[in-house]
């Protein structure tokens, strides 16, 4: 592509690069986040899932050592292996929840914002109602109502997540639909649905992407909290929250059982929060300086 003057493009890149390097923390976070995703995907290759059902009582409640890097739990299972295997479930839950929440939220928000009118008003009131109940507690109530099981827990948290995305996207859409190209498209006879799906949504999705990444950091906390309280999976499908529930029984004798799974949750959440921060900085650099 012929350019008569490269310097604006170069200074843009310089600026973006400056941001990333300046914020080494974001880089670290992104790397860890990717590592976490890798671990979750390949967990069964790293560690044998048989660990969950292998009982080794003579070695129970061992502190961290060379053979068991993070110690063992009350069944003698290696904690490091348990954490690796549990991460998989947490990550899957995280992705499912945010994925479904975003899909619902974006669709509702886009249509509602674009079409406007009474339906839009009504939807906003509904999101108001959802925002009036503290997230964790709403998830708790829904999970209690739906009954036990991992899928019900995931569903419950999705119920809490969708209003947020709806609001964000609707706000963006309201601004976007004032733009001239929208009128042009409609004048050409392009149907509303097509305008929304092929034009509006792709142009307004950036803040949602940022929010998603940040939410990945937050959702895992909600998920772990509720599973700590007893919702969700079963002993055969451990997740990090559940590990802590079990671990806390031995908190003073074997603190590693509580400390390390929690630390894992913290690291995962932190990584995605940092990555989200970085994405936000890169996506709207103009607002930053």
């Amino acid at each position, binding site marked *: 592509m012929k350019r008569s003057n490269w310097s604006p493009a170069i200074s843009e890149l310089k600026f973006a690069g400056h941001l990333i390097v300046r914020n080494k*923390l974001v880089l670290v976070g992104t790397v860890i986040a990717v590592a976490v995703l890798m671990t979750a995907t390949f967990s069964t290759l790293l560690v044998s899932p048989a660990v969950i059902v292998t009982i080794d009582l003579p070695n129970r409640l061992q502190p961290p050592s060379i053979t068991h890097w993070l110690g063992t739990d009350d069944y003698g299972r290696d904690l490091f292996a348990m954490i690796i295997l549990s991460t998989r479930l947490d990550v899957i839950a995280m992705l499912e929840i945010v994925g479904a929440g975003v899909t619902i939220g974006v669709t509702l928000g886009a249509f509602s914002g674009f079409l406007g009118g009474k339906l839009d008003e009504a939807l906003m*009131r*509904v999101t*108001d*109602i*959802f*925002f*009036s*109940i*503290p*997230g*964790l*507690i*709403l998830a*708790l*109530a*829904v999970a*209690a*109502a*739906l009954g036990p099981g991992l899928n019900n827990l995931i569903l419950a948290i999705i119920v809490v997540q969708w209003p947020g995305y709806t609001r964000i996207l609707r706000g963006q859409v309201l601004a976007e639909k004032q733009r001239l190209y929208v009128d042009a498209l409609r004048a050409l006879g392009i149907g509303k649905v097509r305008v929304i799906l092929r034009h509006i949504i792709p142009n307004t999705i950036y803040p949602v992407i940022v929010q998603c990444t940040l939410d990945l*950091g*937050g959702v895992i*906390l909600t998920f*772990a*909290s509720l599973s*700590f*309280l*007893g*919702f969700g999976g079963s002993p055969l499908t451990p997740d990090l*929250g559940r590990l*802590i529930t079990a671990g*806390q029984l031995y*908190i*003073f004798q074997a*603190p590693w059982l*509580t*400390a390390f*799974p*929690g630390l894992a*949750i*913290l690291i995962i*959440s*932190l990584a995605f*929060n*940092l990555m989200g*921060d970085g994405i936000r900085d890169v996506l709207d650099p103009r607002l930053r300086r």
Partner: protein
Amino acid sequence: MFLLVFVLIGVTIIIFFLSQVLMDPLALYLTDKTTQAAIPAIIAHYHLNDPWPIRYAVYLSNLVRGDWGFSQSESEPVLSALSQRFPATIELTTASILWILVIGIPAGIISALKNNKAPDHISRLVALTGVSTPVFWLGLILQLVFFYYFAQLGLPHLPSSGIYDTTLALEYPVATITGLPVLDTLITGNWVMFEDSLAHLVLPSFALAFVSLGIIMRITRSSMLEVLRQDYIILARSKGLPERVVIYRHALKNAMIPTVTVAGLAIAGLLGGAPLTETVFGWPGMGRLAVDAIGRNDAPLIMGFTLITALMLVLANLVVDILYGYLDPRIKY
């Protein structure tokens, strides 16, 4: 004002849906003394066999009258079980709010003033860690360190659970005026128990506050930075005002506006974290009641708890709105 009522009604609809539609409607109103024979009367009284709109109307009117159902596990009406534990939760959440105000806001301001220097980096890291930390895990770790390890090392340590030492309270009985031990012992001059209740309050309230602390710190910082870039700050300096006055009189009030708007979110976080914190610290509040109810399959209690926290959040948001109107004279209500 109208919106408030609407929202509350909306909340009751959600809870109605959860408890009456998804679950067995009868469960809400069965007590431990209900006999098989009495059931048809109950069904008739609460219109449980009627179409939904009627059921909802009856449900709502009962809520307003104070009939929130019966808790099997507590053997008492839901509303009374909750209201007994209400003061303890208030004590916990209020203490957490104090942590946030006393640490969060000043830290945010200092962070903005010393932008990109050491204190800023530290507080940003703390804030970031705060929003990434599972509240219940933090509570457990705090207990581990400040109770167990400190005791092991012979250091003065903080208690790990409960709202005050019940054995000690036998000697120094705690009055029940407000229901908040810290206040009650203060009012009655019961210094032994005052110290004790305070000691019990420290860890749980800090754990609960930690997450929201991060959020408030960050938003205070970023809004302060934003405000300090404004033109009216240049004018203030050009008047020859001392920097202290520029910051505290001109900048701060403006900077607090975005912070206050986030306050509602922060309070939601506190309320949501309460069940976890109360469980971990054995705190006799509503949250723990609700969590226990999970294990005992006591749905009415869980639903009642949800309703009450929604009420609290709505009220808190109202206060926040009023505060916002006070700070920003451009807003008219």
